[in-house]
């Protein structure tokens, strides 16, 4: 039984768009970061799908790199959240739109 490659791509698109909704519509900065992870994960799924389709492992290599970048981004983002929370006592991004600390 074969699953068409289109199904994987559409699933990737759906997950990406759900994540995009979270990034645009939510106001909790932690949820925004989580949704960003969701979007990155959807892109990784697309990488691996195309890799399978072409019988080439380059997609796997780039998925590992995207994972590393995601890990670094999360570490820095969470450190910033902790630092901001110590100053402002809030995680609402509507409150956090100042440019000075």
């Amino acid at each position, binding site marked *: 039984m074969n699953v068409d*490659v289109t199904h994987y791509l559409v699933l990737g698109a759906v997950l990406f768009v759900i994540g995009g*909704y979270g990034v645009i*519509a939510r106001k*909790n900065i*932690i949820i925004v970061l989580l*949704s960003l992870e969701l979007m990155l994960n959807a892109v990784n799924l697309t990488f691996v799908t195309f890799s*399978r389709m072409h019988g080439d*492992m380059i997609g796997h290599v780039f998925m590992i790199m995207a994972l590393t970048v995601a890990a670094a981004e999360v570490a*820095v983002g969470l450190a910033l959240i902790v630092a901001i929370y110590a100053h402002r006592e809030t995680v609402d991004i509507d409150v956090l739109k100042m440019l000075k600390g």
Partner: protein
Amino acid sequence: METVLFYIFAALAVIGAMAVVSNTNPVTGVVSLVLTLFSTAVLFVLLIAHFIAVIQVLIYAGAILVLFLFTVMFLNLRPEGLVFDVGRFYEKLGVLIILMVVTGAFSMELFSNSIGSANGGTQLPEEFGTVEGVSRLLFTQYLLPFELTSILIIVAILGVVAIAKRRV
């Protein structure tokens, strides 16, 4: 069999993703994201990317989300402090409709001209998706990007230490 597994875990992934973006409590969001990532790992196994599936579970679900949970616990947010995120119905509905139209158009485009089967067609190499195959590419052809990633991680570590230290 493979089709059934695909649909089960695709549905689980979408449910988890929806739970992430619709929950007020960040802890529930993190746990829902774990569900999505595990389902995606199963899909990676279906796509014969076994090493990638293991990496997904170990690093994403194991390390990154634990970091998230740790931060949420550390911030000690109370539920009554999170009410700013409910309401504003029309704004959210507008965003949702725009995004659904975009995905619908994309999916129609994909379904109308099918690209090909994920499983038939191309002949896979012997070591496709194994640790050996992926690492051979990673340490020969893509050695420079790999080393640059390690520099990125060092920069990230230094940045995090600098941000966290200033506070104390």
